[in-house]
Every structure is written in structure tokens, then in C-alpha cells.
């Protein structure tokens, strides 16, 4: 255990989790500037992971009928229609004038494929009493369905609202970054399918370099709104293994602007909470036994 086991930058997440000899940390860089909103990621994920279809509801949220990440949506493509006033552009008075030269700049349609962030400090994992959630040798965070007893602590532990219990067996569900595929040397299903390579899979260090270069290139092109989300190891979750290039503020996409792992203050509390920790272990034991 180190100073940054629960908060702050952490270079070797898998090593910290007890893997002496492990592959590099793997993750996603989702470059939303090239997302075409096709939802291949959603389908490829569901097909591979056996995630069932959800409700057949028209949501009216532009072309998004998935709504949010959840037990039955491990990838979710958000669609954001931005009107002139939202962009601070002058509006026009006469209807039909929108076909003028302002027609491109007065409207923007953003698309972004969201996914579990695979945080450096994962709230879901930190609060899981059963060991169902664990850190893999790839530095990713996975729910083990053979362990999970559906207690639901993780749901409130996630600062992004990603993880959710599935109706029926009640077990917690979220992206595994295709742990099974990774172990076979395959890339995750969503990244493989993505037609425009908006979802890129690779070593997190390398992806961060690539992302920084991409932001710089977009800025040079005048896309001043381009920014990274989750790539900063000094943020509230120690940076994420799945991070994003956004074209606007995170809130625009429905993402929390400054997520913080709920265990941030845990180290300071650790000594005072010594007894609580013992109780925590005991509770885990009971839960584990109960879950078998």
C-alpha cells in the first residue's frame, strides 16, 4: 500500500493490485471528434458479452434511445444537438434564412460513445464488500459474476453512475473492457467494430500521448473546444483507463465535470476507522459466504 493507493496519481495500478508480472495498463481512448453515432459499439458489446436488449422506448433524446450506461448498456452513444443560441451565434429572424451561410455554424451535432471509465481509483471496487469487483492484470476493473451477490454498494460508489444491478439476478453489471478477449490477445468488441476508430484500444500511456497530440491538432485546426476528459492523473479518480476527447464541456454530454472517488478521504480516516475496517472484513466474509 502506498500514499496513492486510494487517491491521486498512480503509475502502476496492476502492480498496486498485487500483480508482480503483468502486462501494461490497457484502456480506451474515445475520440468523439470522429464518432459518427452509428452505435456499432453498443451492438458489438452486447453481442459479445451477451448483454440483453433493454426496453423498446423512443426517448426523444435526438437519436439516443439507450439513455444512459447501465446494467444492459455497457456502451452508450450520446447525441447532442446544439442550436445557434446554445453556441452563442446570432440567430436569424425570418424562417428559412437558416439556409444561408450561417447554416453550418449555427448548428452542431455531437456524438460520443460513453463507457465505464476503469478508474485508477475505482469507487465501485473500493466499496465492494465481496471481492466481486477486482482490478485485473490489465489495470481494468471487472465485476466477477460468480462472486457478486447483488448488494449494490458499488452502484453508489461510482462517481459516474456507470455500474448498475440487472433486474432479475440483481448482480452488478458494467463494461469489463472485454476481459476475456484481452486474455486471448483480442481487442474489445466495441473498439474492433468502431467504423471510424473513434474508440481506440491500447496501452494507456501510449493512448494518452496520442490523445494529447490529437487535441493539439484539433486546436491548430481551430476546434478550440476540443479537450480531454479523464486523461489527467491528478483528477478526482486518479485519471481513468478509459478517457475521452470531447468537443465541449463534459456536462454537455451528460458527464460529471469533476468526478471524485468516494474513497478520497479514506486514507486520512484510516487509523480512526481501524475497527470499522475489521467490521468491513467481517461483513465481506458474511456476504461472501452468503453469496456462494
Amino acid at each position, binding site marked *: 500500500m502506498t500514499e496513492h493507493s486510494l487517491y491521486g496519481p498512480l503509475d502502476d495500478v496492476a502492480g498496486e493490485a498485487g500483480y508482480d508480472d503483468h502486462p501494461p495498463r490497457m484502456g480506451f481512448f474515445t475520440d468523439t471528434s470522429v464518432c459518427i453515432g452509428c452505435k*456499432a459499439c453498443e451492438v458489438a458489446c452486447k*453481442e459479445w458479452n451477451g448483454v440483453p436488449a433493454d426496453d423498446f422506448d423512443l426517448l426523444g433524446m435526438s437519436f439516443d434511445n439507450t439513455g444512459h450506461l447501465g446494467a444492459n448498456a455497457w456502451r452508450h452513444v450520446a447525441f447532442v444537438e446544439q442550436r445557434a443560441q446554445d453556441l452563442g451565434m446570432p440567430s436569424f429572424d425570418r424562417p428559412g434564412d437558416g439556409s444561408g451561410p450561417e447554416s453550418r455554424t449555427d448548428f452542431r451535432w455531437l456524438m460520443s460513445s460513453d463507457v465505464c471509465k476503469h478508474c485508477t481509483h475505482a469507487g465501485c471496487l473500493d466499496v*465492494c464488500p465481496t471481492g466481486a469487483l477486482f482490478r485485473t492484470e490489465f489495470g481494468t476493473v471487472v465485476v466477477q459474476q460468480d*462472486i457478486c451477490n447483488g448488494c449494490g454498494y458499488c452502484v453508489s460508489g461510482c462517481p459516474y453512475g456507470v455500474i448498475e444491478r440487472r433486474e432479475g439476478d440483481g448482480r452488478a453489471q458494467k463494461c469489463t473492457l472485454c*476481459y476475456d478477449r484481452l486474455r*486471448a*490477445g483480442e481487442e474489445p468488441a466495441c473498439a474492433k*467494430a468502431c*467504423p471510424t476508430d473513434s474508440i481506440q484500444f491500447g496501452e494507456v500511456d501510449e493512448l494518452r500521448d496520442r490523445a494529447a497530440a490529437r487535441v493539439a491538432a484539433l486546436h491548430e485546426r481551430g476546434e478550440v473546444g476540443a479537450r480531454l476528459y479523464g486523461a489527467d492523473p491528478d483528477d478526482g479518480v486518479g485519471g481513468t483507463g478509459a478517457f475521452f476527447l470531447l468537443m465541449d464541456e463534459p456536462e454537455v454530454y451528460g458527464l460529471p465535470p469533476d468526478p471524485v472517488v468516494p474513497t478520497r478521504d479514506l486514507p486520512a480516516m484510516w487509523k480512526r476507522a481501524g475497527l470499522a475496517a475489521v467490521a468491513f472484513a467481517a461483513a465481506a466474509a458474511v456476504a461472501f459466504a452468503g453469496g456462494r
Partner: protein
Amino acid sequence: MRAAAAGVSMERRREAGVGPKRWLELWPVYRQLTGGDPLGRGHAAQSPRSAGLTARTEGADHVAKSICPYCAVGCGQRVYVADDRVLQIEGDPDSPISRGRLCPKGSASTQLVNGPQRARKVLYREPYGTEWQELDLDTAMDMVVDRVLDARDKGWQDVDEHGARVRRTLGLASLGGATLDNEENYLIKKLFTALGALQIENQARI
């Protein structure tokens, strides 16, 4: 990338041996207290199932090279098969067209071929009938033979209304989808032409 860690963890499990101690070692809190993962969130928490996990496509006994059946881009697909069942369909990275990628429809191909929506039996609705009935394939084929010849003869014309020789039938029509193979379209056109049928059409008209 290689999955080096998979081998490592498998080895550790084997070292754990059998017996009561093994069960204890598999208990996460026990490992948390004794192993190199003091917070019990990583290696110590890995379940046997997780430790043995691999992609199900690894179990394929055959991989067929195919092409996506939806739009006309013609993306390459790899069809993973075990015991004459499709395990998984995904993009073929070798394809210079698609480079392994698929759209949502192409990505749903496994469901398309394996799903419960697939019809498996011949069904028959008699004239003025209110329900489907099952029909033997062989019987159905023979019934279609009868009806094709009947419709051909009812719509037969040796000459048209101007007396010009046309040797054709207007009693029989066909509309084909554009997801049929070239070889299939060829036999369809050839057979209908030999029957004298002309109204042989296709999605390409639409």
C-alpha cells in the same frame, strides 16, 4: 499485445494445490490479509472463473471467411464455428474495404443467424384460411411445381395483341431481394426465362 498475465495466474492457481487450504486461499478476505494485495482488490480477488477466462472464439473449430449481408459496402466477416453452431461473427481485419470494422447491423450478424426470429419450417396458408399450417418441404415443392405450371399456362401468350410472336407468360411474377447471391440470381433468371416468365424483378428497381 500478448496476454502474459493469463499464464501467470493459471500457474499460481496450480501451485495452490488441493485440499482445505485451497478453499481458504480462494476466499478473498483470506488472501487479502496474507498476500501481496493488501487492499484485496486485485490479484487476491480474482475468482477461479476469472482466472480461467478466455475469449470463446478460442474454442472455435473452424473460422469461415464471409461477407456482411446488409449494405453494399461488402465488409469482411469472420464466422467462428464450433460443433456446427455459429459462436460469433465479427469483422475481418484482412479486408481492404472494412479493415475489421462493422456497423451496428453487421455487428448484430450473430443474432441475425442464431436468433429465435429465424423461421425453420415451411408454413402454408390455404385460400380463405385464418391460420398457418405446417407443410412438409417435399410436398410444398411439388405443390409449387403444380402452381407454377398452372399460372404459366393461364397467362400464356404465343403472340401479343398485335399478333407478334412473344412466346411468354404474364401469369407469373417474381420480386427478389438484393441479398441473394449472384449464383442464385443466375439460376432464378435462367429458370424463369425458360418458363417464359418476364416479370422477374428485383430490389434494384426500387
